[in-house]
């Protein structure tokens, strides 16, 4: 009789543990979350992805660490601008007087 009672106790414990495990598993599934979780988490639609074959996986590029080596400035050279715009004589030679844009009807102060 005593042995039978222990079998019942152990069976109860095992069944209880199984129920707890099933409950946790269910809670972890999307769409089975409790009401408060549903309110807090925005619905994210499941992305349907194409199956990736092993071959594609092997051919995929391996992620590399970013190259942090300083690189040369990407700006284009301005030597031609500097050469001319620091040369007073050259500027005088190339200067073009703009067409007069002031109207003869203009009068008074602005």
């Amino acid at each position, binding site marked *: 009789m005593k042995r039978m009672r222990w079998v019942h106790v152990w069976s109860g414990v095992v069944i209880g543990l199984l129920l707890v495990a099933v409950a946790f598993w269910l809670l972890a599934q999307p769409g089975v979350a409790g009401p408060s979780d549903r309110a807090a988490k925005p619905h994210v639609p499941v992305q349907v992805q194409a199956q990736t074959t092993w071959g594609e996986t092997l051919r995929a590029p391996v992620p590399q660490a970013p190259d942090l080596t300083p690189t040369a*400035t990407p*700006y*284009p*050279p*301005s*030597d*031609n*601008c*500097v*050469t*001319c*715009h*620091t040369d*007073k004589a050259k*500027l*005088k030679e*190339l*200067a*073009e*007087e*703009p067409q007069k*844009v*002031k*109207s*003869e*009807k*203009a*009068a*008074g*102060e*602005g």
Partner: protein
Amino acid sequence: MPPLEVWQKVLVDPKFLDDVHAKPGCIACHGGTPNTDDKKEAHKGLLPKAGNEPERACGTCHVGIVEQTRDGLHRMLWGYQTVLKRRGADFTNPKLVVAYTTHCTKCHADCGDCHISRPAALDGGLIKGHKVKRVASVFITCGGCHSARVLDEYKGAHEGIPASVHWEKQGMPCTKCHTVEEYHAGVHGTRYTGKPQPSCTQAGCHEDVRPGDGIEQHDETHLKGLACQVCHAAGAYKSCFNCHTGRDEKGIPYFATDPSQLTFKIGRNPLKSEDRPWDYVLLRHAPATHDLFGYYGENLLPDFDNEPTWKYTTPHNTRRQTPQNASCNACHGQRELFLTEEDVAPAERDANRAVIVTDIPEPVEEVGP
């Protein structure tokens, strides 16, 4: 100030090339074409005023300032837009927009207009060989746009009217009173929207001015009733009249105003509020007219009379002792100091009804020393 020669406008000082602002190279900010000595070819894709694209030219480093100025008073000219809207301007009307952009936006200022070049009003050109000036030049930059109605008064350029004591005795540049936020940011409205800034009585200035401070006429009535300038503007200041805009036979845009006049007029405060509580302020005539934009379309300012043409002003010729505060009756009973109906053109009387003074303060019995 005479305009620069064409070549002077674009002559770069070799010293600038050592400046951090030169490091990206000319083309990074101004566009253009590298590796050619041909002028025409080199200037293909050129953006002479890099400040027209402030995010690209300046904003990569000066992120916060460029962000602040995007909506600033100097850039957006909110003052013009605000006043024109009060006069009924409809900025969705293409005719109005053409008139506005042809004649009003020349005053627009981006970074380079203050820190590198002369303003467009002086026909542009580099101020100092492309040196990037941290603090803009009082005379060339501020005065380039605000000379007639601010700097000339401040420096005493009008014959017989002294300079401001702030200039004459202290040599204070504009930046002593006007903060960097005023230049860069600004407000929607006009520069007279909100609290006076700068204020004469702000901390570090005349903060001890109050009724009973021991100064004659600084009593409750005068300090509450009159803006500081009413007593402390040293004399007349410039008013402009009768502006008309249009294009001539060759299609060149022009504006024409009547010769300016030196006026001194005390009027009712058109901006009376908790921030500007005075009954009387000084007024200056703005050159606006009913048909200001008449060339561009009919009735483009249909609510012209909503806004006075004699506008709130704060002349810069400030002195402690002035003709009108020499004695009680230097002001009381002096009809010519006040804006009365006969001072206002008949066509503008409705617009100025709220600022015209009808009751001149009676002369009082002078109290002897």
